[in-house]
């Protein structure tokens, strides 16, 4: 096993990785930007290195600075997490040239799969079904128009280097194509340093189901089943679960999709943890979408259901160890759900809500897993992804897991910035969600039908009471108080 590993990331995933390293008795080195000096990952790591200014292009995306930090701190390996440099083959190469192990697939596998267009070609060769579309980025406007017409609108623009919905646009009409391509390309360039965009047929209201794979350097390759990530907003996943409700109705589908994923991975010589994403249409046909050549945000749901620690296996595999789990060993037990807690305001169209967290109370208790990257008093920077934490629950059945999530959400308090916690409460009590009737259009329909829960007048009275007692003793709005103002205010009232 390694002696020391640099974590080339920030936020909750950097915390997750540092935890895994500590459990493996491996020293950790954090990196940080000007905005992140106080970030939890910097505080938790054994060592920490400053990279540069807050924009990712001057810090977390700077290969030269990260390699330099790794050298100066004599690390054996670098874990890139997700996002940032995690799917950058040049970074994997730079690690190799510096004699440092990149914890992830080989640069060659990233090149074969990391570009969605290259991955399509490979998937077709491996016999996997794909969505109709172009196999390379389109730079010429006339060419783009011709291809979009041939495929038929609506089409989807996607960043060749991307993931997570960045640089993605739905286009319904030919006249919208130029503006959409410009926006998608500029967003892709910012997010991934590569503005290449390609065109694909839009499958209407599919499910998004992905297969987790794990391979070592000795030819062993297994899949750990699916995650259903259909609940998405702006192509960004918000709720993920395992098993997919579809698998309960169609028990053979997991094995079929797993086999397709393994064929693609095998063709690319894939090692480490990775995810093969598919769209599943209403007739349970599945189409290869892309491969994420990294650890996924939503990996905890797989870990909860299979009891396999994906990060520990990434470390062991990168250190050259044998994957000792065989496909027959994998058991899927119970049901896990994850909610991505974002700093965004559901009341104003989910606009980002960076700023200082003034109040934070986190849920816990049986079956609850919280992967958080924030603390009370932390100033959530506006430069990065709005993900604050991932709240996951496990229970023997899907219904119990949803109920447990409702319970955990009810314990979660975040004040000072807006979060989407209340939105999850609404989604989880939606009958369609409860019934497992999911698709990537789920939320569009949900927003049309969602209704407010009935008024709880007694609860309103309780709120009014606390504020009134506070108001009576202090003429100004009470700040979270240290004094016994409430007590004195009440005594005052009772006199």
């Amino acid at each position, binding site marked *: 096993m390694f002696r020391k590993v640099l974590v080339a990331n920030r936020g909750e995933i950097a915390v997750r990785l540092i935890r895994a390293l500590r459990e493996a008795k491996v020293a950790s080195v954090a990196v940080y930007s000007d905005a992140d000096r106080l970030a939890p990952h910097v505080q938790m790591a054994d060592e920490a290195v400053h990279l540069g200014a807050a924009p990712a292009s001057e810090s977390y995306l700077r290969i030269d600075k990260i390699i330099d930090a790794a050298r100066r701190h004599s690390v054996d390996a670098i874990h890139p997490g997700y996002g940032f440099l995690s799917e950058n083959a040049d970074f994997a190469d730079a690690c190799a040239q510096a004699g440092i192990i990149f914890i992830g697939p080989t640069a060659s596998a990233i090149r074969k799969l990391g570009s969605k267009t290259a991955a399509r070609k490979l998937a077709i060769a491996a016999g996997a079904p794909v969505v109709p579309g172009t196999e390379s980025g389109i730079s010429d406007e006339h060419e783009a128009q011709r291809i979009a017409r041939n495929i038929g609108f609506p089409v989807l623009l996607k960043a060749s280097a991307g993931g997570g919905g*960045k640089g993605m646009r739905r286009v319904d009409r030919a006249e919208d194509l130029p503006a959409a391509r410009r926006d998608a390309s500029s*967003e892709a360039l*910012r*997010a991934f340093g590569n503005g290449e965009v390609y065109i694909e047929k839009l499958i209407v209201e599919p499910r998004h189901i992905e297969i987790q794979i794990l391979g070592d350097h000795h030819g062993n390759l297994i899949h750990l089943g699916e995650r259903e990530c259909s609940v998405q907003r*702006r192509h960004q996943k918000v709720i993920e679960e395992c098993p997919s409700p579809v698998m309960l109705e169609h028990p053979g589908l997991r094995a079929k999709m797993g086999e397709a994923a393994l064929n693609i991975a095998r063709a690319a010589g894939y090692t480490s943890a990775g995810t093969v994403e598919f769209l599943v249409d209403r007739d349970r046909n599945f189409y290869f979408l892309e491969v994420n050549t990294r650890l996924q945000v939503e990996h905890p749901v797989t870990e909860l259901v299979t009891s396999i620690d994906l990060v520990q296996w990434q470390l062991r595999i990168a250190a050259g160890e044998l994957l000792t789990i065989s496909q027959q060993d994998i058991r899927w037990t119970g049901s896990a759900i994850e909610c991505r807690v974002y*700093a*965004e*305001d559901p009341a*104003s169209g989910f*606009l*980002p*809500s*960076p*700023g200082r967290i*003034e*109040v934070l*109370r986190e849920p816990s208790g049986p079956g609850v897993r919280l992967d958080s990257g924030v603390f009370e008093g932390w100033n959530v920077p*506006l*430069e*990065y*992804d*709005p993900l604050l934490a991932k709240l996951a629950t496990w229970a023997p059945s899907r219904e119990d897991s949803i109920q447990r999530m409702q319970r955990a*959400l*009810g*314990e*979660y*308090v975040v*004040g*000072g910035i807006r979060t989407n*916690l*209340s939105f999850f*409460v609404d989604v989880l009590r939606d009958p369609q969600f409860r019934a497992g009737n999911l698709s990537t259009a789920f939320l569009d329909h949900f927003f049309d039908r969602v209704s407010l829960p009935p*008024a709880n*007048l*007694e*609860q*309103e*009275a*309780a*709120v*009014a*009471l*606390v*504020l*009134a*007692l*506070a*108001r*009576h003793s202090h003429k100004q*709005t*009470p*700040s*979270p*108080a*240290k004094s016994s103002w*409430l*007590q004195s205010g*009440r005594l005052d*009232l*009772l006199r």
Partner: protein
Amino acid sequence: MKFETQIGGHAGTLSIDADRLHYQREGGDPVACEFSCEQAGEGAYTVLLNGASYQIVLLPAGEVWVNGSTFRAEVFDPRGLRGRRGPDSETGRKSIAALMPGRIVRVLVEAGQTVEAGQGLVVVEAMKMQNEMKAPRAGKVAQVKAQPGTTVAAGEVLLVLE
């Protein structure tokens, strides 16, 4: 003691008399019962009403968390001065303010330019998401305050239409 209340957008009144309260939301059934209210840490309270337990946490910006839900909530002392300001007068000028804190990516118009309703004005980016501010109505750009590359707070005026 009597108070006027605004809880989650609903107006009401609250009277407190010794250990009894009477709450009446406009158009709702009255809540009248004994209460127990204790502070349970910084900004945290526990209230018992009719045997039901309410956990309450005061949040910044006039928000209150209660049993898993967050409300905007206010109480007013009816004896206090609270002259409500009327709506801003219609001068024909319309300030376009940032909806979220972020960084100005692009300014799509210039001062003096005529714009149509729905036309893109300024692109603001925060947390890797770009938000294009659009003209709420047709008009002329009177003033451009937004500078590409600079950071703005929510509510900061980016440009003025007339």
